[in-house]
C-alpha cells in the first residue's frame, strides 16, 4: 500500500513538474516580452509550441509578437520575412484550434501591418479581406470583447479615412468595455487583454462628444 502510494506520489510529482515547466516557460516568455526582448520571447514561445503540440497559445503568441513588432518597420524585406513567419505560427495555431476568434483577429492584425506599411500596395486587397475576417469573427463570437473592440477600431479607421465622424462607433467601444468587465478569466495565459485600450479609446470618444471650450 505504502509502495503504491509512493509510486502514485512520484508519478504525480513528475506530472506536476511537467505542468510547471509549461507554466515556467510561459511565464518566462511573457517576462521576456515585457522586457521588450521580442526575439527571445518569440523564440521561447516557438520552443514551447514545439513541445505542446495541442495547445494553440504558444504559437499564437509567437506569431503575435512578430506582428506587433513589425509595425513601424521601414524595410519591406524585413517586414515580409517577419510577417511570413508570423503567418506560419498563426497557421499552426489555427490548425490546433479551428475558427478561434482570437486567432482570426490576429490574422486581421497581420494584414493591418501590411496596410500600414504601404496602403496603396496592400490596402485595396487586404482591407476587403479584413472586413470579411471581422464579419466572420463577429458571427462566431458576437460577445467576445476583443472581437468587438478590434472590429470597431477597424471601422473607426475607415470612417476617419473618409473624413466621417467616428462618434457613432463610441457606443460599440462602451459595449466592448462592458464585455471586458463581464468576462470570466478562467483559462491560464488566454489573451484576455484589451480593456485598457478600450478605455483609452473611450476617453477619446468622450473628448470629442463633450462641448469644446
Amino acid at each position, binding site marked *: 500500500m505504502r509502495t503504491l502510494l509512493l509510486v502514485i506520489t512520484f508519478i504525480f510529482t513528475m506530472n506536476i513538474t511537467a505542468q510547471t515547466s509549461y507554466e515556467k516557460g510561459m511565464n518566462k516568455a511573457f517576462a521576456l516580452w515585457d522586457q521588450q526582448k521580442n526575439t527571445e520571447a518569440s523564440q521561447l514561445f516557438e520552443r514551447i509550441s514545439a513541445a505542446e503540440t495541442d495547445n494553440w497559445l504558444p504559437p499564437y503568441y509567437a506569431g503575435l509578437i512578430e506582428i506587433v513588432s513589425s509595425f513601424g518597420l521601414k524595410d519591406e524585406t524585413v517586414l515580409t520575412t517577419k510577417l511570413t513567419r508570423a503567418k506560419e505560427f498563426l497557421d499552426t495555431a489555427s490548425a490546433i484550434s479551428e475558427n478561434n476568434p482570437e486567432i482570426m483577429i490576429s490574422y486581421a492584425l497581420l494584414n493591418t501591418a501590411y496596410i500600414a506599411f504601404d496602403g*496603396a500596395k496592400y490596402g485595396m486587397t487586404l482591407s476587403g479581406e479584413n472586413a470579411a475576417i471581422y464579419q466572420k469573427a463577429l458571427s462566431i463570437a458576437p460577445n467576445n470583447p476583443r472581437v468587438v473592440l478590434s472590429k470597431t477600431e477597424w471601422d473607426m479607421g475607415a470612417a476617419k479615412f473618409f473624413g466621417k465622424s467616428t462618434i457613432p462607433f463610441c457606443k460599440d467601444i462602451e459595449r466592448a468595455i462592458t464585455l471586458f468587465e463581464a468576462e470570466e478569466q478562467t483559462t491560464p495565459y488566454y489573451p484576455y487583454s484589451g480593456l485598457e485600450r478600450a478605455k483609452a479609446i473611450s476617453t477619446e470618444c468622450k473628448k470629442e462628444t463633450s462641448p469644446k471650450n
Partner: protein
Amino acid sequence: MKTLLIALLTLLYVHTYAQSTISGKIIDQQGLPIIGANVYLKGTYDGTATNDQGVFSFETDATGIHTLIASSISFETYSKSDKINHFQNITIKLRDDVNTLDAVTVNAGTFNAGDNAKVTALKPLDIVTTAGALGDFVGALQTLPGTSNVAEDGRLFVRGGDAEETQIFVDGMRVFTPYSPSANNIPSRGRLSPFLFKGITFSTGGYSAEYGQALSSVLLLNSVNEPQEEKTDISIMTVGLGLGNTQIWDKSSLSVNANYINLAPYQELYPDNNEWHKPVASFGGEAVYRYKFNNDGLLKVYGAYSAVDFDLTQEDINEVNGVRFGLNNNNLYLNTSYQDFMEKDWSISTGISFASDQTKLKLDTADITDTENSAHFKLALKKYFSSSYKLNFGAEYFITDFKEDYSANTIENEYKFNNNLLGGFAEADIFFSKNLATKVGLRGEYSQLLQEFNLSPRLSLAYKAGQNAQFSLAYGEFFQNPRNEYLKFNTDFTAEKTTHYIANYQFVKNKQIFRAEAYYKDYNNLVKYNTAFTLSTSTYDNTGNGFAKGLDIFWRDNKTLKNTEYWMSYSYLDTKRNYRNYPTKATPDFASKHNASLVVKRWVEDWKSQIGFSYNYASGRSYTDPSTGRFLTEQAKSFNSLNFNYAYLISPQKILYLSVSNVLGTKNINGYQYADQPNTDGIFDRRTITPAADRFFFIGFFWTISKNKNYNQLDNL
C-alpha cells in the same frame, strides 16, 4: 523489496534528471556565424539562442533519441534526430531560404503585377486606374516598356512582333479570342474584365517552356481564388450599364456580372468621322464558380459570353461612297481549371478551355461568316524536391477547327482547316544559392496540320550582384503555326520561328524599381505570299525572315513624392522584316523606333480623390508612298497623347469616375491611304487616316451594396 523499489525509483529519477549538455555552432553556407538562431530539442522546453559567435550551449534532462531543431529568419529550418549525447560540439550549416524576398528572381523578360510578386512593376489597382487605359488591362500594359503604341489597333504589339504573336492565358489555359472585334481604325478592347484577376505576369520574351505557340510574348492572368464577400455592384456609365453579384457559400462561391454597352447616345452627342448605321452595341456576361474541396483542391469554372453588333460606312479614297462594314460577333468562352496539392510535395494542375466564336461580316456586297471552335487540354505536374530544386512538367493538346463561308454575288466559297497540336514540356528551377538561380526547360510540339515536330529549348539565369541589384540572361526558341488568315487558303507550311536573347539589369530599393533590358530577336520561316491581299490563288511559302533588337527601360518610384506614384518607360526598337508580300526587308508599319510613357497618380486625401495623368509618345511609323516607288520608307508624324482620370469617393461605396483620353486634342495620324491609280498629274492622291475621334470622354457612377459598408468598386475601375 521495498528498498529495492525505492532504489530503482531513485535511480530512475536520477536518470531522468541526469543533465546532458547540447552545444555547437551555427553557420551559414559561407561559413559565417548566424546570430540569434533558435536551437532547441523538439518536444522539450530546452533550448537557447546562438550568441554573437553563432555558438550555443544548453542543458537538458532528455535522454535517448531526440530531434534537434535550429531555425532562423530567412534560413531553412534544420532538424536532425539522434542520441542526445551525439549533439555535442556539433556544427550546423543552415541553408538559405530561397523563397524569401531578398532571394534572386529569374525574371529576364518578365513583368509581374500583383501583391505576391517579389518585385511588382504594376499593382492590381494600376491595371484599372491608369489614365487612358479606360478599364482595359491591355491599356495599362501598354505603359510598360517593350510594347509599341498602335493606337488604331488596341492590341499588344511586343518588341517588333505583331499582335498575333502574343498569347493570353487564364489560369494556365489559352484564351483563343481575347479581343472584341472592331472596325478598321477603331481600337479593339480586351474581352476579359480586369477585376477577375489578382495576378498578371507579362512576359516580353524568354518565357517558360510551359507556354508555346507565341513568337513574341505571353500574358498570364490568374483569376481570384476566393471572393471576399457577398455584394452587388451597379455601374451607370455614359456608354452603358453594368450589374454584378457575388454569392458565397461554405465551400463554393459564384460571381456573375453582366454589362450592356451602347455607343449610340454618345455618338449622338460627339459625332466622330464615321457614318454609323448601327453604333456599337454589345452585351456581355461572365460567371465564375469556385469550389474548394476538403483537401487543398480548388476547382474554378469561368464562362463568358459576349455579343457585339455594329454597322458603319468608312471613308475610302478609292470609293466615293465609302466602304460599308457590318459586323455581328458571338463569342462563348469556357475555362475550367483544377489545382491540388498532393502527398510528397507533388502538385497537379489541369484544365480545359473552350472557345466558340462566330463572326458575320458584311463587306459591301460580300457576306463572310467565320466560325472558329477551339479547345485546349492541359495536365501539369509539379514536384517540389526542396526549396532549391523544383520540377514542372506536363502535356497539352490544342484543337482549332476553322471554317469560312464566303458569298458575294454569284461566288460561293468555303475554306476550312483543322489545326491540332500536341505539346509537352519539362522545366527545372534550380537555386544554387540565394544569389544564383537558373531555369532550364525544353518544349516539344507536334503539329498534325503541318506534320512536323519542333523542339524548343529555354534557358534563363539570374545572379544577384548586391543587396539591391541583379543581372539576368535568357535564351529561348519559339515556334508558332501560321495564322488562320493563311491556313484557310494553304496548309503547306512550316512553323514560324523566333530566337530570343535577353540581358537584364534590375535595381530594386524600397518602393523604387529600375530595370534595363537589351534584347535581340531573330525571326525565321515567316510566311510570304505574292499578292496584294491573301487569296486562295496566292502562292505561299515560308521564306520570310527578320530581326528585332532594342533596349527597354523602366523606372518606378513610389517613394520620393508623398501620396504620389509614377512610372516611366522608354523603349528603343530597331526592326526589319521581309515577310507577307514585302518586296524587300523593311520596318513594318506597326513598329515605332521610340516609345515612351509617363504615368502619374496622386491621392489627394482632402478631396478623397485619386487624380491620374498619363502621357504616351511614339515616334512616327513607316508607310509607303507609291509616288516614290519605294516600299515603307516614309515616316509619319509622331504620336502624342495626354490622358487624364479622376476618381472621387463620394462615400465608401459610391464612386464617381471621370476619364478623358487625349485631353489636349492632339491631331494624331494613324497612317495614310493612297489611291490605287495616280491622278492626271501622275501623283497618287492620299487620305490621312486619323483616329475616329480625337478625344474620348467617360463618366461613370459605381455603387456597391454589401453587408460591409467599406467595400467599394475602386478596385474594379
